[in-house]
C-alpha cells in the first residue's frame, strides 16, 4: 500500500495535495483497494462550493457505492474529465491520473484536522 509522505489525508480516505491556495483531491490507494474495480465516478460541476465534511461526489465500484467527502471548505476549480471514460484510473494511479478535483480554499488554515501520512497509516491499520 502506497501512502505518499507529502500529502494530507482524511479519515474518510481522501488525499489532499496542497499548492499555495489550491489543492488536488483524490482517494487513497487503501480506499481504491477496499472498493475494488471502480466503474463510475460522479463529480461536482466546476464552480461548486464544498463544505468540509459533506459529500461532494460518488465512487461506484463493482461491489459498492461510496460517497467522497470534502476534506476542506473550498470551491471546485477543475474536475478530472478523464474519469468519465476511464474510471479505472482511480485504481491504477490513485495519486496521479486518478485525481478527482482541484479546489481553491475558502477558509484559512486548510490543514486543520487533516492527517499526516503517518497518522493516516495508523488509521488504516485499525480498519484492516
Amino acid at each position, binding site marked *: 500500500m502506497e501512502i505518499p509522505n507529502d500529502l494530507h489525508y482524511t479519515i474518510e480516505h481522501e488525499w489532499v495535495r496542497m499548492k499555495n491556495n489550491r489543492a488536488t483531491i483524490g482517494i487513497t490507494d487503501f480506499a481504491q483497494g477496499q472498493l475494488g474495480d471502480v466503474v463510475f465516478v460522479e463529480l461536482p460541476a466546476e464552480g461548486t462550493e464544498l463544505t468540509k465534511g459533506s459529500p461532494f461526489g460518488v465512487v*461506484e465500484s463493482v461491489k*459498492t457505492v461510496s460517497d467522497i467527502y470534502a476534506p476542506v471548505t473550498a470551491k471546485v476549480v477543475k474536475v478530472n474529465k478523464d474519469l468519465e471514460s476511464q474510471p479505472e484510473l482511480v485504481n491504477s494511479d490513485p495519486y496521479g491520473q486518478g485525481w478527482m478535483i482541484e479546489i481553491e480554499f475558502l477558509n484559512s488554515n486548510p490543514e486543520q484536522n487533516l492527517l499526516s501520512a503517518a497518522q493516516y497509516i495508523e488509521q488504516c491499520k485499525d480498519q484492516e
Partner: protein
Amino acid sequence: MRFIPHTEQDIREMLETIGVQNVDQLFAGIPDNLQLGNKHLDLPPALSEIEVISALRQIQMRNPDPEETSSFLGAGAYRHYSPAVIASLIQRGEFSTSYTPYQAEVSQGTLQAIFEFQTMITMLTGMDVANASMYDGASALAEAVLMSNRINKQKEYLIASSVHPEYRQTTETYLRGTDLRLINVPYSSDGKTDFEFIRANLNDRTSAVILQSPNFFGIVEEYEQLGRELKDQNTLLIVVVVEPLSLGILKPPGEREADIVVGEAQSFGLPVSYGGPYAGFFATRKKFVRQIPGRLAGETIDRKGRRSFVLTLSTREQFIRREKATSNICTNQGLCMLAVTIYLAVMGKQGLRELALLNLRKADYLKNKLSKMKGFSVRFNSDTFNEVVLRCPRPATEVRDALLEYNILAGLPLGDYYQELADSLLICTTELNTVEAIDRLAEKLGTV
C-alpha cells in the same frame, strides 16, 4: 424455491441469543388493549368452499356486470381488448411464480422479458433507457419528481392541473415531509395547459415542469417549444402518458424534448381493475441512468460468449446502497409487465398504430354526435385522442345516475376534481365501444 420454517430449536436459540424468555415478550411493547392475546376474533362460522364461492358471487353481483354494461369510463383506466395469448402465457408457472431475478443463472426467462419490456418502452416513448416497471403510473410520476431533484437539486415543480388528479395526490403524498413543493399550473379556456403561466413562474429554483399528454381532459398538449426553453434553464421536462395507446399515432415525448417520461401501461393487455395491479413505466435519457429508481435489466455475454441478461447498475438500489439508494422501490410489476410485453409484441408497430387510429375515429364519431345534441357541447375546443369532456345541461352526476338506469356508464363527472366542471362528463371511447353503443348513449343522453 422451498420455504423452510424455523424449528422449535431455532426459535429457542434466537430467543436465548437476544436474552428474551419467550416469543410473547417480543410484543410486550404493544399496549394490552391492542393485543388479541387469548381473545377470539368475532368471526362468522366457517363456510364450505361452495358457500364461500356463493357468498363472493353475491358480493360481485353488486357491481355492474361489465359484459352487460355499456361503459364510457376512461380517466386513467382504459378498456381495451386483451388477446387470449396473454392470459395463457403469463399463467405459465415459470412466469407466474418467479421471484426477483437476483440469480441471473436461474432467471434468464424473467430477465429477458424485463429487457424486452424496457426496449419496447424506449421505442414507444422515444427515450434512451427504461426501467423494469413501477407500481403504477402515479407512483412512477412521484419517483420522476424525486429523480429530478437528485439531478438538479432544485425544489419547486410546476405541475399542470390537467395531470391526472390522483397522480397529483400520490405525488403530494410522496413529497410529504420533504421540502419539495408542487405549484399548480392552471389550464386555459381550450383545456390545454397555460404555458404563459409556466413561463412567468419559471425561476432558478424550478426543478421540473410536469405535463400530461393527452392530458386528463383527453387533449393533446404541444410542448416541444416549451421543452426547448426549459433546456436553457436547467429545468427538466417530465411528461406523463396515462393512455400510452396514444403513442401509436402521436410523436413520442422523446422527440419532443422530454427528459423523463412516465406513465401507466394498463392499456396494454391489463384489465381495468379497481386499485390494480397495473404497471407503471419510467423512461429517461442515458445521461440520467444512474439516477433512475428501481430495477434495470441489461444485456451482456456469459463466460462462453453467449447472449444473456442480468440486473444491472444495482449499486443505485436499496439492497446495496441502503438509505442513499435512488428509491425504496426494490421490485417491479413482474407479471403485469410481462402481459404488457406480450401485448406489444402481438400488436407490433403497425397494429398499435391501427388500434390508435380506430380509437381516435370512434372518439371523433362520438364527439361529433354528442356536440350536435341540444343542451350538450364539447367543453374544450382542442385536439383530443380517445377522450372528450362533454358539457351537460344538468349536473354531470345526475346525468351519470340517469344513464346508469339504462346500464350505461356514461363517463366520469368532473366536479369532484374540478369544481368549475361540475356540469361536465369525461367520456372515453375505445375499440370496445361499438357505433351502436355510441348511438344508444346519444339517444339516452337526449332523454335526461
